[in-house]
């Protein structure tokens, strides 16, 4: 079966800095990938390449086995790739209510004088469908008519993720989705990722919390200074192993740095 996403020898340079160094990976349909690594390992950069935000300096990017050339967030989204941001640079509109946010950019309209003029918003239909979707995903929100700014961080994150389902996502990219929400809410967001998986939607989750990774991921990838140093199925590894990989890798890179400095 062709994987949903395939990266081959991807490099990304920022000036002289190699943020992504010869990374190859595949993401299967309905597969959840956990991506870990120390700060500045290049996790966000890799996510942004997949989301079409960054264009790789070199390498191949295939979706459904076909080359993805038009690097833009919009064309990635057209291919079914959605990125959920952290709440601090969130993509929701705080002054609009939940239903208005879920349907932002894809509004439903009432008929005007029996014609489809796309003039008058059909708020009732959008609210009803929002209610159904949120219920389906087990997202608990006081009312779909509540302004997003009155929701908790976890609820906002859940709405962001639910929105990707509305956008017919096939791959959801979550860059540290639980970094600024409570532990109780974290659990809900993780459940949501598993719900997406049950719907056949793939996801990549970046997190510093091993718990997040081990509850959701099928496969775990470790990045270090832009390089992929581990790519292993969850059942073939353990939390200790992964943490060791990250820490050892850190020691290694430290010693490398000290080695490199005199020559530089």
């Amino acid at each position, binding site marked *: 079966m062709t994987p949903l996403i395939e990266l081959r020898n991807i490099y990304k340079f920022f000036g002289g800095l190699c943020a992504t160094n010869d990374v190859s990976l595949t993401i299967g349909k309905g597969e959840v990938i956990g991506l870990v690594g120390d700060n500045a390992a290049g996790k966000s950069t890799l996510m942004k390449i997949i989301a079409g935000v960054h264009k790789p300096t070199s390498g191949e990017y295939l979706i459904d086995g076909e080359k993805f050339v038009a690097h833009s*967030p*919009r064309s990635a*989204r057209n291919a079914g790739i959605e990125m959920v941001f952290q709440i601090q*640079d*969130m*993509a*929701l*509109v*705080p*002054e*609009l209510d939940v239903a*208005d*946010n879920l349907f*932002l*950019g*894809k*509004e439903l*309209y009432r008929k005007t004088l029996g014609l489809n003029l*796309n*003039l*008058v*918003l059909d708020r009732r239909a959008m609210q009803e469908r929002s209610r159904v979707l949120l219920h389906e995903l087990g997202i608990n929100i006081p009312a779909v008519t509540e302004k997003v*700014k*009155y929701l*908790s961080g976890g609820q906002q994150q859940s709405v962001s993720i639910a929105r990707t389902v509305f956008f017919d996502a096939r791959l959801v990219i979550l860059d540290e989705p639980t970094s600024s929400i409570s532990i109780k809410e974290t659990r809900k967001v993780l459940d949501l990722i598993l719900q997406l998986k049950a719907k056949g939607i793939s996801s990549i989750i970046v997190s510093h919390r091993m718990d997040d990774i081990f509850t959701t991921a099928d496969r775990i990838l470790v990045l270090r200074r832009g390089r992929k140093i581990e790519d292993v199925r969850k059942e073939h590894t353990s939390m200790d192993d992964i943490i060791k990989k990250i820490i050892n890798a850190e020691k290694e890179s430290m010693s490398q740095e000290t080695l490199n400095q005199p020559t530089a």
Partner: protein
Amino acid sequence: MKDVSKRLAQLCLSHSIVAVLILLSVAMALLSDKFFTAANWANVLNNLAVPGIVALGVALVVIAGGIDLSFSSMLAACAALAAWLQPQNFWLALIGPLALGAALGAFNGLLVVKLGANPLISTLGTQWLFLAALFIITGGGIVQGNMEGPFHLIANGRLAGVPLPILLLLLLAAATSFLTTQTSLGKYIYAHGSNNCGLRFAGVNANAVYLKTFVLMGLIVGVAGIVLSSRLGGVRPTEGNRYLIVVLTAVLLSGVSLNGGVGSLFHVLIATVVLGVIDNGMVLLAVEYKYQQMIKGCVFILAILYNNYTTKQLAMLRVSKR
């Protein structure tokens, strides 16, 4: 329970301008028996048709997260053009000012949207620019139109006993309310003011939304220009300046947030009526002109403080509710 009281506080804060209008009207009715007469109300509303219409347009831009201070000069320019065209052709005198308003709005919009200019500063600049251009074109004198014919009727005619300017004001208030609450463009205007990145992220052309808002405001100012021209007959280049404070006061008083994303066009209408009642009250109570100016200045300052206060209180409700 706590939620209910909070919701109530939220409701009271966001509709407080309606209470202000009621209290003010009751006070005026007690102070002057002329206040609650049909003739007086027709007079009040008739006087606020022009600033009321302009305030609707300015409020749209503020909700979208910007501001347009050039409306005074735009208003004078549209009115002058109407006065100039009106002896030649009635329809041209309607279309011309609307087109000019839209064009000036687009000019402001392009400065802000395409060139990234700060709207406060750049529209202060265009206020001067448009006014100076008007002085040059008119030579600084009055642009005189005819004082009769169908064009004269716009500001002076009545329909079913109601002065036409009042009907126009109500019509535009209804239309802009409809736009902001029932259409996707209206929703996008709020979204742009609240978080334009979010709007962009949803795949909406946020720049186009912002630009359209400026053009829409220009069109609305064009309508006000037609009414003003019809009322005055002759238009001086500085004609718009006396509306500067009253329009901004109305927008601030209505609870439209200067941070964008918040406000109701219905409240803008109510806030304009409040200012009209204050104006009318000062006349009925025979307040001297110099004191009237001072009171207006004070109301403006109060409006800023009031706007600040409600915005903050609403924000606090949000924090404590988390």
